[in-house]
């Protein structure tokens, strides 16, 4: 099969067919990789010399944090392309990504809190990274609320898109400001130049992260299909009403 032409996918019906085929190919490997990653992370990987078994929560916490952030960026890019090219699917994907990203941010906050209790001795501290993840979660909630509180769906999507874009500009400032303000969280251990994590811990982390990524993509596709189907149902109801009237 040739690579699908991206412009052809702009047609919602064609996208629908494409997404229907693609979803299981993302969902099943995603669940599989997540399962293997978590199995290796939770049972086979060595415990940390300092934190013992507590470190195992990392295999959930870190990927959730990555894709909560990445999801927000993706949502903002979708919002921007909806604004520039008036692409209907881009606008829909803002709505598809927002709750998934919010859920990932919530998972990150909850697992972080559970991790914080034994290692820092408290469920919550006003640390820079914790606070900026909380703000990210609130930004997601704002976008979701704005979508749903507009009577006109298309308008709600547009407005939420503007908010998401303004949020992207502000997000680095929020991150910088709260870290400047107070920081307890350890700095990132994995950088482009290399990692300070032992390979036996890094491998399951990467597997689990890849699983999270595929799962994220699958969930977004499923939501997109639902939203497109909803739209078509609405249109059909409108046409019927017009014929009946």
């Amino acid at each position, binding site marked *: 099969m040739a690579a699908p032409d991206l412009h052809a996918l702009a047609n919602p019906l064609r996208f629908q067919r494409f997404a229907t085929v693609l979803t299981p190919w993302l969902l099943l490997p995603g669940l599989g990789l997540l399962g293997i990653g978590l199995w290796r992370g939770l049972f086979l990987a060595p415990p940390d010399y300092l934190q013992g078994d507590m470190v195992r929560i990392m295999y959930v916490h870190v990927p959730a944090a990555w894709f909560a952030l990445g999801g927000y960026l993706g949502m903002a890019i979708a919002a921007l392309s909806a604004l520039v090219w008036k692409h209907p699917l881009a606008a829909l994907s803002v709505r598809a990504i927002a709750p998934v990203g919010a859920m990932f941010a919530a998972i990150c906050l909850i697992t972080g809190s559970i991790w914080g209790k034994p290692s820092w001795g408290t469920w919550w501290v006003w640390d820079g990274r914790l606070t900026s993840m909380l703000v990210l979660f609130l930004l997601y909630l704002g976008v979701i609320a704005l979508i749903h509180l507009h009577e006109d769906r298309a*308008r*709600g999507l547009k407005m939420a898109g503007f*908010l998401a*874009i303004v949020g992207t*500009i502000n997000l680095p400032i929020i991150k910088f400001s709260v870290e400047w303000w107070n920081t307890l969280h350890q700095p990132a251990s994995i950088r482009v130049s290399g990692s300070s994590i032992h390979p036996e811990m890094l491998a399951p982390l990467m597997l689990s992260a890849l699983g999270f990524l595929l799962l994220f993509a699958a969930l977004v596709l499923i939501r997109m299909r639902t939203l497109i189907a909803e739209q078509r149902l609405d249109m059909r109801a409108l046409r019927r009403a017009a014929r009946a009237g």
Partner: protein
Amino acid sequence: MSLFGKLIRRDLSLMAARPGEWLMPLAFFLLVALLLPFAIGPEPGLLARLAPGILWVGALLASLIPVSTLFAIDSADGTLDQLLVRGVAAETLAAARLIALWLGFGLPLLLAAPVASLMLGYPFGALRHLLPGLLAGALGLSALAIVAGSVTLGARGGAGLVALLVIPLAIPLLLFGSSPAEPGALGLAVATALLLAAVAPFAAGAALRASRG
């Protein structure tokens, strides 16, 4: 007078005709400063230490009050449509509203802040560090207010929605502004406010156009 100036003057004279619009946030700000001592106890040392934070939280909450009427009145009586049909750029409109709100909200705030700090026992000499930050902060808060006001135009959310939209975005302003003793914090507060003020008219303008459907 340029169109931009005329729009600002119109907004300001409307504000003067409806004193509730600028008095209400002011009263709210003072009420926050009055309420906190009851909640945390009247110990003077503690109050003085908390004063910058209380004043900033008060200013942030007060800035939420005008949001729901910022564009809603003009939209309901058709003025907004008239201006846009005449070819006035929505961004110009939003920028004029931003400046008018800053003058109508920020300047009264600057007058009320010494009164509030008196109530909290905050040393008068320290005000000269706090007030410039508050004035710049009011610009940033006004910028967030016009964005929130334009994207919620026609939404059924009310005050809760506005708070949810503005508060997360206002956190850097609050952090930089409410620690006036830290070196460099004032500069960062001003920089953040200016960045928000530069971006907000474009976001709000686009949202105003989208709200006409």
